[in-house]
């Protein structure tokens, strides 16, 4: 029987099942073993698989990621946990110059089957250096696959796919989604990488959401029903590659489009989607494509300031009204 599970539990199941299935899979990260992981995703796995397969590494992101890449070249399948996406910047050289490029610069003679899991997002008063949405920094890089699952079902299915592919995958989780519940199918299933998901069919406009913003967009769309606005919601799920066909099909039908992310919109994922939709759907568009993102400031600590920095479902509704040509009351 499929049952409701927490997003973090779904991730834990994916890790455990893949480690069970394939001896070459191991986990490495900071405090993922004894401590159980900063977000408790890996809790209990140390007891089950031992310290060789659930590795508590020194707090040294560059060597953690480099070790994972080097071991992947020798045939292991490492899954790295970065405590938060902010810390991945310390390992950015390894990710960009090594993980993403090794296969190409050695003419296909080596593969890097690597997964780096890391939570992004904000909303817990963690302030500037612990709150980031950096999808675009990874989405930019050829050689990487970048995904951002939003449901427990996808979290488990996509993590399994990520572990099984021979390409390096940036697996972007959201710290605000770990406690979300959702149905998770039974047994060994995988969810393909590289595919967007239509979360709600609608006729009036298309809202493309990135990571947690896809969840907020879905909430907003349900509320917009009362205002007689029928929004289609697409969960981007894959940052690289972008799955254009469902987006194009949707926008050509609704003729209106808006894009929401938690990160900064200038040069952001929303910029890329908006540009792509414009190129592909120009003749069908009845309104400018709108973008919504986080305030362009380092994340402030103060609660009211932080709230003002992250898009809400109200913000999404407001922009949706604008896109379909309705007036906003407030």
């Amino acid at each position, binding site marked *: 029987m499929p049952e409701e599970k927490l997003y973090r539990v779904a991730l834990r199941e994916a890790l455990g099942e893949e480690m069970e*299935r*394939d*001896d*070459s899979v*191991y986990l490495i990260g900071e405090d993922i073993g004894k401590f159980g992981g900063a977000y408790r995703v890996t809790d209990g796995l140390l007891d089950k698989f031992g310290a*060789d397969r659930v*590795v508590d*590494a*020194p707090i*040294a992101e*560059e*060597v953690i*990621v*480099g*070790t*994972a*890449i*080097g*071991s*992947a*070249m*020798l*045939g*292991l399948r*490492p899954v790295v946990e970065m405590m938060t996406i902010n810390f991945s910047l310390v390992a950015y*050289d*390894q990710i960009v*110059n*090594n993980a993403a490029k*090794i*296969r*190409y*610069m*050695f*003419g*296909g*003679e*080596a*593969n890097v*089957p690597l997964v780096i899991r890391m939570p992004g997002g904000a909303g817990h008063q963690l302030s500037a250096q612990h709150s980031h949405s950096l999808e675009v920094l990874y989405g930019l890089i*050829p*050689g990487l*696959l970048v995904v951002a699952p939003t449901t427990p079902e996808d979290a488990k299915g996509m993590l399994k796919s990520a572990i099984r*592919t*021979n*390409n390096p995958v940036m697996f972007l989780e959201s710290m605000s989604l770990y406690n979300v519940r959702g149905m998770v199918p039974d047994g060994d299933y995988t969810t393909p990488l*590289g595919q967007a998901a239509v979360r709600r069919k609608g006729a009036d406009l298309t809202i493309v959401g990135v990571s947690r913003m896809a969840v907020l967009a879905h909430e907003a769309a349900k509320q917009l029903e009362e205002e007689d606005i029928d929004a289609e919601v697409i969960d981007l799920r894959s940052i*690289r*590659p*972008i*799955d*254009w066909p469902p987006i194009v099909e949707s926008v050509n039908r609704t003729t209106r489009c808006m894009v929401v992310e938690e990160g900064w919109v200038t040069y952001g994922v929303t910029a890329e989607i908006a540009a792509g939709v414009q*190129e*592909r759907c120009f003749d069908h568009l009845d309104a400018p494509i709108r973008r919504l993102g986080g305030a362009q400031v380092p994340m402030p600590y103060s609660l009211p300031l932080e709230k003002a920095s992250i898009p809400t479902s109200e913000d999404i509704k407001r922009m949706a009204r604008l896109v379909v040509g309705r007036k906003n009351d407030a």
Partner: protein
Amino acid sequence: MADSFDVVIVGGGPGGYVAALRAAQLGAKTAIVEKDRMGGTCLVRGCIPTKALLQSSELYSLAKGGAEFGLVSDSITFDWMVAQKRKTAVVDQLVKGVEGLLKAGGVTTFRGAGRLGGKGTVKVGSDMITAKDIVIATGSAVSRIPLKGAELTIDSDQILELKDVPKRLAVIGGGVVGMEFAAMFAALGSKVTVLEMLPQVLPMVDADLVNLYMKHLAGIGGAIHTNSKVAEVVKAKGGLQVRFSEGGEGGAVDADHVLLAVGRSPYTEGLGAEEAGVKLEHGRVVIDSHLRTTAQGVWAIGDVIGGIMLAHVASYEGICAVENIVGDGNRTPDYHAAPNCIYTDPEIAHVGLGEKEAKEKGLDIKIGKFPFVASGRALTLGQSEGFAKIIADSASGKILGAHIIGPRATDLIAEATLAIQNGLTMEQLDLTIHAHPTLPESLMEAALAAQGRAVHIPNRRASTTPPPALRATSPASGEDQAATSPASGEDKDATTPPALRATAPASGEDQAGTPPASGEDKAPVVTSRAAPVQNREQMVASVKPPTAPPHPTKITPKMLELTKENRDFLLKLHRQMQFIRRFEERTQEQYTKAKIGGYCHLNIGEEATVVGGIVPLQLTDYIFTSYREHGHAIARGIDPKAVMAELFGKENGTSHGRGGSMHMFDSDLRFMGGYGIVGGHLPLATGGGWAVRYKKEKDVVFCMFGDGATNIGAFHESLNFSKVFKLPVVWFCVNNRYGMGTPVEAASAVPDIYKKACAYDMESIQIDGMNVREVLLKTSEIVEKTRADSEPRFIEAMCYRFKGHSVVDPDKYRSAEDKEKFRKADPIVAFEHELEKSKLADEEYFKKVRMEVDAEVQDIVKYADESPEPKVEDLYKYVYADEWEERPELRGDPL
């Protein structure tokens, strides 16, 4: 209900059934799965039925010539169907025999196609079997090539079922299968024509044997066209016609049947291998040195893993795999004495190195030949065509190879195989009493002939072929020089496929460096065997440049003493250093000619650290290195042509022109790449060490970097990590005293770099990086310690680069005196002084080496220049692996 076993073997061929029997012997509860008849291709469609028919054809030939022996008959005719019936009976008897053995051995048999179900399960029809370990032994199937009219041809399975002997038979492919059928049908009176694309049929056999065989075939009306590319097969004149081009000219052969014999491909259809986590590469199952696949508890042996696709090799691998599963778990197959038998008329068999191969490796060899016409037994048999040839190491007398063409060559090879497998010398062979009159006496005589002591043939002057390295020093060798072409290698190029990739040496042993009779010589164990091997012929052609780096199995202080016994090894080291020097000088020249672009960092002045650092490593060790790595790649054994081609940005470069100067790579040689971010590869080497530890292997990761890298965070993180987790990594710092233009003292708070490793509590030494013998010895000691205890260690090798940081560096930051001082300490010049003082070589010799390596390098440059560029349409190839390769949405193409 699932049956559960310790070991399940999928495939009942000579690999599979032998493995099953051995597993059962060792007490494992064993099952075997076979969808066809027990015995596999070998028993049912290959070795056995063809040999049964060959016996008929041979008897027929003998009987036709019987009058000479007193066998008088009015007419001798041949009944093909009777021969077929006998063949079937032989096969049936053997198949029954195998079934009986399995039953008696307590092996459970499942009939049907086995499919891997993951997690230790195998599905056979509706049965589900579970096993702790599974061995894939599904063998191979006949290869097909895209050829117009291929549907008109028959393959080696179908030819066995022919209802009569064709009047005219055309054979496409001059490999073993093609030549055996050619021989058989020619003997039965068919007019046989063989079409081969390469310049020689049976390319893995020495040319003198092949020439003799071709003469024989021509004598009975057969024809062989080499260098012939088949264009199409068409219907014509009540039969078929094969159209081909031979050296640019068109030709055609009429035939009743056309046999397509272009090799065999690994067979995994319906096995569900990849779904079960078993990685395939070009259709073959990828295995590690212990025959493990990428899936836990799944092993693979025989033709399905590519490599040497022979029945007896499969059986041998089967035993290795099973003993790894049930036994002590540490057997790695050693192929250096795998014999190959070809049942032509006369028969051909060979084992170990051929004459051509040995010469290409630059080995100093002795050759002895004995013709069967001088053998009493051969004369009594009336089969005196052919000869036995022995190839042996000059210095030690150790037998390296044997090539035999003549009566029962396929049986005779057994003695040579035993000798090579056990490292016997020619003397040990010739001191063994051989019964008289027998055919094996010919091997004894060949061994004697090589030593100038043959009894039954006149002795020539000892037929030593001096390797290039030795010629100049032996004053009496004037005549020999003419016989050996100076390292030109043109003839090799003709047979080398255009995409030339480095291949691991066929044998890991190096004569000079191997202590005699150590019994530990193993073939190099590589992570994955070279690309798709469909014709075993291709696989045997290991093209090595004349200056190949030595790969001794072990370094001892004694080996490095400047004595006569060590001369060969020491001169090889010298030649390798000189070769790298010249390679880099020519590289610089090509850079100024704009044939090479980008940044280009040369090893000039660092040769002692290059050769001294890499030669002590085992071929199973891993190397991660920096961007200054042309010499490193060459010293590891990567073909210098592939290195130069990469510098030229060509498709047949080590990285297919995608990497260039800074990114050489070779997975077979475990050369895990050159990297361009200073210090950025140290974490990768840490990961390499992690993987070795994780897999509980005994390999060492050797990480090379410059002094500049020791100031970066990654350096400290990596040293710390390697020590915390006890990883088998040797950190090898080539301190050439400058990080680009900044001297070490100006950049590093601790200018004695080896001291930095003390912060991580690891053993660390500083050595003279201008002295190749010191580097070699100290590196070897450190590496072997690390192999033994899996503790990281650190070496700082002090040296000097004679050129700027890169080719474009004007080098204004170093004083003229400084440069002069180190010039005087030139590691090559210093080594030459040592060699000269010890009377191991003289200036004339060094001059000669310089000339020879320059000739080699010039050929290499020419090769690189003439090599093809990567295709622009392949721009996106290699960005992503597998299903993601070349997906349009990953290119960002608009719409």
